[in-house]
C-alpha cells in the first residue's frame, strides 16, 4: 500500500537558517510527488511537484525538493527561512493510474526571530 512518512512532527529553526524537511514514500509505481503548505486557518497550497524529468524541482517561495529514487525520498529545502514560512508542510504521493493523493502526517515549522 502507498504510504508517506514525514519523520519530523515539529521543527524549529531561526530566521535566516537553512531548512530541510524530510519525506519518505512507499509506492509500487513511479510516483508523482508533491509538497503542500498549510498556514493556520488556510487550505493546502501547492509548493512544488515532481512528475518526471529533472529530479531537482523548484517551487514557489524559494523552496526546492529533490527526488531520490534510491532512497525513496523527496526532501524539501530552503536556503534561508523567513518568519512567514512558519506553517505546516505536507508531503504527498500519487500516480500509478490512481486519482488519490496519499499524504504524510505533516511537519509543523516554527521560525524563531
Amino acid at each position, binding site marked *: 500500500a502507498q504510504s508517506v512518512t514525514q519523520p519530523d512532527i515539529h521543527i524549529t529553526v531561526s530566521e535566516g537558517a537553512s531548512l530541510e524537511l524530510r519525506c519518505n514514500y512507499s509506492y509500487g509505481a513511479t510516483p*508523482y510527488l*508533491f509538497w*503542500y503548505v498549510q498556514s493556520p*486557518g*488556510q*487550505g*493546502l*497550497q*501547492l509548493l512544488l*511537484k515532481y*512528475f*518526471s524529468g529533472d529530479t531537482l524541482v523548484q517551487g514557489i517561495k524559494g523552496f526546492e525538493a529533490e527526488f531520490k529514487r534510491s532512497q525513496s525520498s523527496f526532501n524539501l529545502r530552503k536556503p534561508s527561512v523567513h518568519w512567514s514560512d512558519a506553517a505546516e508542510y*505536507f508531503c*504527498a504521493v*500519487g*500516480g500509478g493510474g*490512481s*486519482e*488519490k*493523493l*496519499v*499524504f*504524510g*502526517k*505533516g511537519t509543523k515549522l516554527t521560525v524563531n526571530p
Partner: protein
Amino acid sequence: EPEVTQTPSHQVTQMGQEVILRCVPISNHLYFYWYRQILGQKVEFLVSFYNNEISEKSEIFDDQFSVERPDGSNFTLKIRSTKLEDSAMYFCASRAQGLGSQPQHFGDGTRLSIL
C-alpha cells in the same frame, strides 16, 4: 490566480442531520476531489469525480456519502446522516486535464462540527 472556493467555512450540525458541503472548483478544471482531515490526523482521500461520475473512492466513502455536480460550477459533498466521527476539516480539490500530469489545487476547507 484562480482558486477553489468552499462554503461554508464552518458548519455546525446535530448528529443524525444531513449536511451539504459546497465547492466551486477552478473553472477550466475537469477532475474534482474531496478529502478530509480529522483533527491531529492525516489528510485522507474520500472520492474523485470526473465526467459526471465517481472515478475512485476510498473505504471511508460509504453509503452515507454522496457527491454531485448539480450545475456547471458547483461540486457538493452530502453526508446523509451525520455521526460524531464525521467531525473534520473537509477539503475540495480540482485539477485540469492537459498534456502531462496536473497537480490538484485545494480550497481552504470547511470545518464540520457534529454535536
